[in-house]
């Protein structure tokens, strides 16, 4: 069992070794869970259940209670209640996976479903086992995502869920598999489950109304399980035809046991889900499906709902796309005709190829046309659902009549905040260093415009620093990249004849020869995009704010001379639900009066939730094409927010994480700060050299451009 990370609560670290008594546990729990306890709801019973555990296990539980309580005390209570039973079956790594799954569910789907995960620890234990060879969803999700992307058919998303099933757009896989003592086999089971779920959608399992079919039986649940077994048999045969290598591995895993002879017709290439349904009637009374190590489940209701929504969307989309195709054809003068009715027709080839790809030919007014890529994808997706394209799908509508409504990822806890239905809100994960996991969709961020300030601010500033501005311009003009011919080079495009003649003279007089005889054309291209992230927290009020604004004016002067692409955004926020990014200058905006006035209008706002701001600006910066991308933060102190204990370690760790993410995506972060205590935390966040301290606020306007120059040459 791994040691849990050291805990800051001193009461949890005294007298190591000896198990705590029930009273001690109770008082520790009381403290953490105070918010959800009452005279009728106490932790006495839970404490009694925890008392017989080892000291180590107790520490583990109390540590996680403390961590979870900071997110939600009720979840912590549920965890404490479920912990004794769970720890009996799960080792610490598995228990951690279990906790993380519950917290992820809580973050995304709320308290009820989150606490359900805690209550169902036995179910989790069955899959997860207690093995070091366990493979978790997070270990494999990237590889499996690419794997399923390589398979043919509709694009599928992956997610973790307690049971393996698909709603025909997302494949849900178990969070952890430890069925085999061998890690590779566990991975293989993941791969097989994934492929079978993909096959459910690819080979038409949901093209019949499964729920109705099962409801006809006295025990619909049993019917569904049986149907699932039959479908698995049919799909295994489909997979064997498309992916023979995987089929061989499936056989090895399952053993060579032959299924009931009555089921064998399902292995024929022509078998469909309807054959499985009709076979169900004959087997329902006396047949029990054998257990299987890679069991998947069918969730017909989920699948039907997703499928209905998708079909409606795709019908509209296809009609609009055909409309555009028609317009293009008519614009090019190929078909001048005013008939508005259906002119497209589709001819399907008799049988799909063995991967299940249907062959078809689209024609317009009886002449074949090659459909563009987007229409092809729609055809494939619809054919996968229906097996044909109904005629009413082929009626072209005018473009623009339909806009695909994108599902917005929503956090149910935001209903009361007013951002729930609002457009333009972004959701970002946040790093919880105690949980060592992300909190999903934790921060709600909106982009706002800075209210423009007084028009004269820029001119005043430029007048105030007139001599320095002139100096600045000269310095930056020198930096501008120009085509230069470099002489006397070791490598180059052409011979430097002057150097050769000199070398000849040297050689004749017996001197040593130089090898610098070539000319090289050198173009120093500044392919650079820089994002300035300006701290607009309340603590910048007063002269810090003035210095920041002046610094931006000077900086813009320099950057305009240099021609680098740049953007300026301010950030502030109050709690995770109200993170705000203020647009001062976008990348594609010229440095005009509007931008100048916005710089003047930068005002101190609330707090400094830095992580989410960095994540958002990273996203924006990554949309820009440049060889070097810089994210420069102007800051006056530590990350800080009103709630969630963002102040202190949590905030620093989240910011650090966000910067690591930015770095990984190819962005170079840098921080300019005026906080004298920066040495204590900035090296940890930005790395030892990626920050600088301007100790005199008044000198900030003069220094920032200079720092930028050093940074980019």
């Amino acid at each position, binding site marked *: 069992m791994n040691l849990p990370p050291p805990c800051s609560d001193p009461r949890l670290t005294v007298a190591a070794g000896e198990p705590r008594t029930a009273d001690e546990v109770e008082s520790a729990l009381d403290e953490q869970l105070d918010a959800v306890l009452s005279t009728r709801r106490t932790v006495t019973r839970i404490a009694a259940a925890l008392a017989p555990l080892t000291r180590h296990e107790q520490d583990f539980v109390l540590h996680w209670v403390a961590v979870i309580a900071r997110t939600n005390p009720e979840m912590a209570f549920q965890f404490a209640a479920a912990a004794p039973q769970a720890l009996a079956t799960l080792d610490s790594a598995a228990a951690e996976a279990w906790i993380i799954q519950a917290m992820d569910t809580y973050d995304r789907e709320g308290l009820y479903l989150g606490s359900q995960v805690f209550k169902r620890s036995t179910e989790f234990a069955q899959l997860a086992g207690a093995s070091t060879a366990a493979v978790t969803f997070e270990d494999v999700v*990237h*590889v*499996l995502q*690419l*794997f399923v*992307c*390589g*398979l*043919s058919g509709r694009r599928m998303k992956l997610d973790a869920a307690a049971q393996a099933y698909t709603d025909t757009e997302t494949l849900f896989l178990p969070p952890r598999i430890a069925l085999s003592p061998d890690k590779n086999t566990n991975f293989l089971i993941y*791969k097989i489950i994934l*492929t079978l779920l993909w096959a459910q959608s690819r080979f038409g399992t949901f093209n019949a109304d499964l729920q109705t079919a099962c409801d006809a039986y006295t025990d619909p649940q049993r019917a569904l399980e049986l149907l699932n077994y039959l479908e698995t048999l049919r799909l295994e045969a489909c997979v064997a035809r498309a*992916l*023979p*290598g*995987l089929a061989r*591995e499936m056989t090895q895993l399952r053993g060579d046991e032959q299924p009931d002879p009555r089921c064998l017709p399902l292995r024929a290439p022509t078998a469909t889900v309807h054959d499985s349904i009709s076979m169900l009637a004959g087997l329902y009374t006396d047949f029990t499906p054998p257990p299987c190590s890679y069991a998947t489940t069918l969730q017909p209701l989920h699948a039907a709902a997703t499928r209905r929504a998708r079909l409606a969307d795709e019908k509209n989309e296809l009609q609009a796309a055909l409309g555009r195709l028609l317009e293009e054809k008519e614009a090019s003068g190929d078909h001048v005709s005013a008939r508005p009715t259906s002119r497209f027709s589709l001819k399907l080839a008799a049988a799909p190829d063995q*991967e299940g790809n249907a062959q078809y030919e689209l024609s317009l007014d009886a002449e074949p046309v090659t459909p563009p890529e987007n229409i092809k994808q729609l055809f494939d997706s619809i054919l996968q659902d229906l097996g044909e394209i109904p005629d009413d799908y082929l009626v072209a509508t005018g473009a623009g009549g339909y806009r695909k409504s994108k599902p917005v990822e929503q956090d149910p806890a935001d209903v009361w905040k007013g951002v729930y239905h609002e457009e333009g809100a972004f959701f970002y994960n946040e790093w919880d260093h105690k949980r060592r996991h992300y909190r999903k969709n934790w921060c709600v961020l909106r982009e706002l415009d800075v209210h423009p300030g007084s028009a004269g601010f820029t001119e005043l500033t430029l007048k105030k620093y007139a001599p320095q501005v002139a100096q600045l311009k000269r310095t930056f003009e020198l930096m501008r990249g120009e085509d230069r011919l470099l002489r006397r080079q070791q490598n180059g*495009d*052409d*011979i430097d*004849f002057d150097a*050769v003649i000199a*070398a*000849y003279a040297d*050689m004749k007089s017996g001197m040593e*020869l130089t*090898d610098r*005889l*070539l000319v090289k*054309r050198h173009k120093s291209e500044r*392919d650079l995009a820089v994002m300035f992230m300006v701290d607009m927290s309340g603590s910048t009020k007063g002269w810090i704010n003035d210095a920041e604004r002046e610094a931006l004016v000077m900086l813009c002067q320099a950057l305009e001379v240099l021609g680098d692409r740049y953007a300026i955004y301010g950030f502030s926020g109050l709690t995770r639900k109200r993170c705000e990014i203020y647009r001062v200058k976008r990348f594609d905006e010229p440095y005009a009066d509007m931008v100048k006035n916005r710089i003047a209008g930068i005002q101190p706002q609330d707090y400094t939730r830095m992580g989410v701001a960095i994540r958002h600006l990273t996203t924006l910066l990554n949309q820009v*094409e440049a060889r070097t991308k810089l994210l420069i933060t102007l800051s006056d102190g530590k990350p800080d927010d009103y709630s969630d204990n963002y102040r202190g370690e949590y905030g620093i760790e989240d910011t650090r994480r966000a910067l690591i993410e930015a770095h990984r995506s190819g962005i170079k972060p840098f921080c300019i700060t005026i906080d004298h205590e920066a040495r204590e935390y900035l090296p940890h966040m930005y790395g030892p050299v990626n920050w600088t301290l301007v100790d005199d606020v008044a000198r900030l306007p003069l220094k920032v451009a200079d720092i930028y120059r050093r940074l980019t040459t």
Partner: protein
Amino acid sequence: MRSKISQLQTKALNTEARIIEKEPYYESVGDEIALFESAYQCLIPVLLKGPTGCGKTRFMEYMAWRLKRPLITVSCHDDLTASDLVGRYLITNNETVWVDGPLARAVRVGAICYLDEVVEARKDTTVVIHPLADDRRILSMEKRGELLQAPREFLLAMSYNPGYQSVLKELKQSTRQRFIAIDFNYPDSALEKKIVMAEAGIDAGNADKLIKLAHMTRNLKDNGLDEGASTRLLVHAAKLIKRGIAPRTACHGAIAEALSDDPEMLRAVDELTSSLF
């Protein structure tokens, strides 16, 4: 100094004109042969578009053989300058000597000059290409003060991959609008299978699986891969399989590792391979 200069000499001389004597193996996918021949008769230069390894260079060799002209291929790189194409002065025996570049040589002998991956070359090369690619058909040799008029037999052809280059390396309109463009893509499954079998001599079963694997990796384009496996990679893998290498090993070396360095992507391609073989 001598070594420097002799290096320069070899650099200028080693792109030798090739007369192709044996018919190269080429499967026509559409009307590209007729289009190319007509362009050649009409003295219009040709631009071949398409992803890497789909047969552009092989097509050029085939056409050179068909038209019975020498083929001079220049692989463009980001250090390729105008003087690399046109020619330069070198020093031999205390004298400066002019040496023609590959483009000038092609113009003089009436060959087909094929600039492979032309967007990789430096911008100043377009200055040389432009007068040669319109109806003037002139190569200006600035350093010698000489103008070369291209003979009827000369043809300029370039290749260009619209897929992977950055926006900065887009072909300029003024350049691309001088050419007749032929679009190349991976052949359809049946034809690709025929090509793989003909080039590597493997059996139909393995060829089928290779084609499937290629389609899987092409599905991954823009989802972590810049390009899917090209026909050329399939031929490589097929040749290894033909030599008795286990198919999974062959595909790992010839396809997975050739496509990506990312460990997760490599694993995913290997998993796809092992699902098939």
